[in-house]
């Protein structure tokens, strides 16, 4: 009697253990979408019982881990380069999950309305060519605003970051000098400025330093109640970042079939120009290592949910939604996942 009971207990425990193993999905990578993913995964768990463990370790580390197949999916703010994908043992797919906007936040005493910037002015500030707030270039964009003669304290990221990548990508498109002298990357050789760690670090320094300017993700500027300026887009319109204009950025750009594309300096008339996708990256062929079909299916369901139902959580947390056309492309990419050559 006792024996059967113990045996039964053992069976039950192993059964639940294997079930739990199948229903835990692991991911790692970008820290920018972490607040959104935390919310999404908590909701997903209460809906389906599947728990997702996401480590926000940075885009680069995420790419490394998916290449080494130590996680089910990676999060990254910038798509992997062709060269980086070659190092992976299988074909990698990218799917965007949200759109982020990078804003120029500042601390200029006495200025109450949002300042206007152009890409050229931002590039010149970050190149160290515009050094005081009452510089002609800034003043002529902001008629009627009394700008102080304060020196500009340029604040930027000290750690490698997808936010830096997006900002530099935009500056490279609007300033030839930036493109030639500095270029695009997660870490740069900065001509000027003081580095701070993380979006919150940059926001903190800007907040406590009169005369400072720094680029941060929209959500951090809002959380820290930092004023941020509008940026003139390609059509010549001054746009203040918000979820709508950021989402429009994806509608002025031709999205390729694999969705690996830069959204900065979008051609859409009302788009905010410094915007980008944040991606999840995973393998097209899911049968590798000792993965089961159930695991592959669980991942596919999660990803599909993230680009459809999960999108409802984006705007509440200040991430822009994927436009319907992009969400459709994303669904098609996810549908192309296979297990042992068969569609899932």
């Amino acid at each position: 009697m006792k024996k059967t009971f113990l045996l039964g207990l053992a069976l039950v425990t192993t059964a639940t253990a294997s079930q739990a193993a199948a229903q835990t999905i692991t991911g790692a990578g970008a820290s920018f979408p972490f607040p959104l993913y935390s919310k999404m995964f908590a909701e997903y768990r209460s809906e389906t019982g599947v728990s997702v463990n996401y480590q926000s370790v940075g885009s680069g580390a995420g790419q490394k881990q998916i290449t080494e197949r130590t996680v089910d999916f990676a999060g990254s703010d910038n798509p992997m380069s062709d060269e980086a994908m070659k190092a992976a043992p299988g074909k990698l797919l990218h799917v965007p999950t949200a759109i982020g906007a990078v804003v120029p936040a500042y601390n200029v005493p006495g200025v109450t309305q949002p300042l206007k910037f152009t890409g050229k002015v931002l590039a010149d500030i970050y190149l160290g060519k515009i050094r005081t707030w009452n510089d002609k270039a800034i003043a002529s964009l902001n008629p009627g605003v009394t700008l102080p003669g304060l020196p500009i304290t340029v604040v930027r990221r000290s750690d490698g970051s997808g936010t830096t990548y997006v900002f530099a990508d935009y500056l490279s498109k609007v300033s030839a000098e930036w493109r030639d002298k500095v270029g695009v990357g997660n870490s740069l050789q900065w001509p000027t400025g003081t580095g701070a760690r993380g979006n919150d670090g940059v926001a903190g320094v800007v907040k406590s330093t009169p005369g400072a300017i720094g680029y941060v993700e929209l959500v951090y500027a809002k959380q820290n109640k930092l004023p941020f300026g509008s940026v003139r887009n390609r059509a010549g319109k001054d746009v203040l970042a918000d979820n709508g204009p950021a989402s429009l950025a994806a509608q002025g750009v031709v999205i390729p079939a694999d969705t690996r594309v830069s959204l900065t300096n979008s051609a859409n008339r009302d788009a905010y120009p410094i915007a980008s996708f944040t991606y999840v990256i995973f393998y097209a062929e899911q049968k590798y290592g000792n993965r089961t079909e159930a695991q592959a299916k669980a991942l596919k369901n999660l990803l599909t949910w993230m680009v459809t139902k999960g999108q409802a959580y984006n705007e509440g947390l200040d991430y822009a939604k994927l436009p319907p056309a992009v969400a459709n492309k994303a669904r098609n990419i996810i549908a192309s996942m296979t297990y042992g050559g068969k569609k899932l």
Partner: protein
Amino acid sequence: MNEPVRPRPLTRAPLSARSDRTFQGLILALASVIVLVFVLSVYQLGRESWPALREFGLSFYTERTWNPVSGQFGAAQMLIGTLVTSLAALVLSVPLAVASALFVAEYAPKWLANPVGYLIELLAAVPSVVYGLWALFVIAPILGRWQQGFFADPANVALYTRCQDLWNSGQTTLQCFFVPSAFDGRGLALAIIILTVMILPYTASVARDVIRLVPADQREAMYALGATKWEVISRAILPYARAGILGGVILALGRALGETLAVAMVIGDSQEIIKSLWGGASTMASVIANQFGDAQERLHRSSVVALGLGLFFLSVAVNFLARVVIARLTPKGIQ
């Protein structure tokens, strides 16, 4: 009955000999684990940094450009940054540490000496992220306010503009070296200040212990000659204790060289030549902390690891040098 009892140790001798051998083997194994860890870490660091070292050769440690975009990596600036912050912090902290050790060991009454000594040791137990936050939220604003006061004078703003032209061309003058480059309070100076506080307890507590260990005969002999308290300290105590104090200094230097988080939070991260005391700089450890997580290109990642290898050898070299210095400074007759 009359037969003498066999001495018991004889029967136990083989067991004791056996356990001796076992213990010897155990100790040997444990000791070789340490050596193994050392060798393994050199091997791992070397293997990971090989792509960078193959690409740039040893000029990796003498080149000044660190540009992740163009894929040019040279660690000279971080090497200098590490040495400058550590040595400057040492110069500031050693007099403070020795003074506090002398106070605790020689001057303070007992009811004061114990709590003060305890508090100094407590400084060593504070995690470095706490120091970093303290520097960022308490000291940086204080320095920032001073810098704002500096910029309130239009003449200084003109001076700053002149200096910035000079800095942009990669030069500096003695005057410009002390002109703030921004007013957020962060930068090289703040990193040195925070390192000074962080390494203080190491030197101070070691110095206090070795000063207490100076034999009473030494002092009494000196007093018997009619020496004043200061003469006793400067002629009898400090010379006797200097080797031990230097040991504490080395310990502090080791910590300063490798300190990562607090420095990375406040140093302002610039891989340019150090042009102003108040401007940004970077150390090898701070660049590793900042760039390793997001280094996507193979060469970039490998270069960051090569920084680690450089830091490893720098620490070994500094420690070796320190041992030589201590051996020379130790007065004869002291073990």
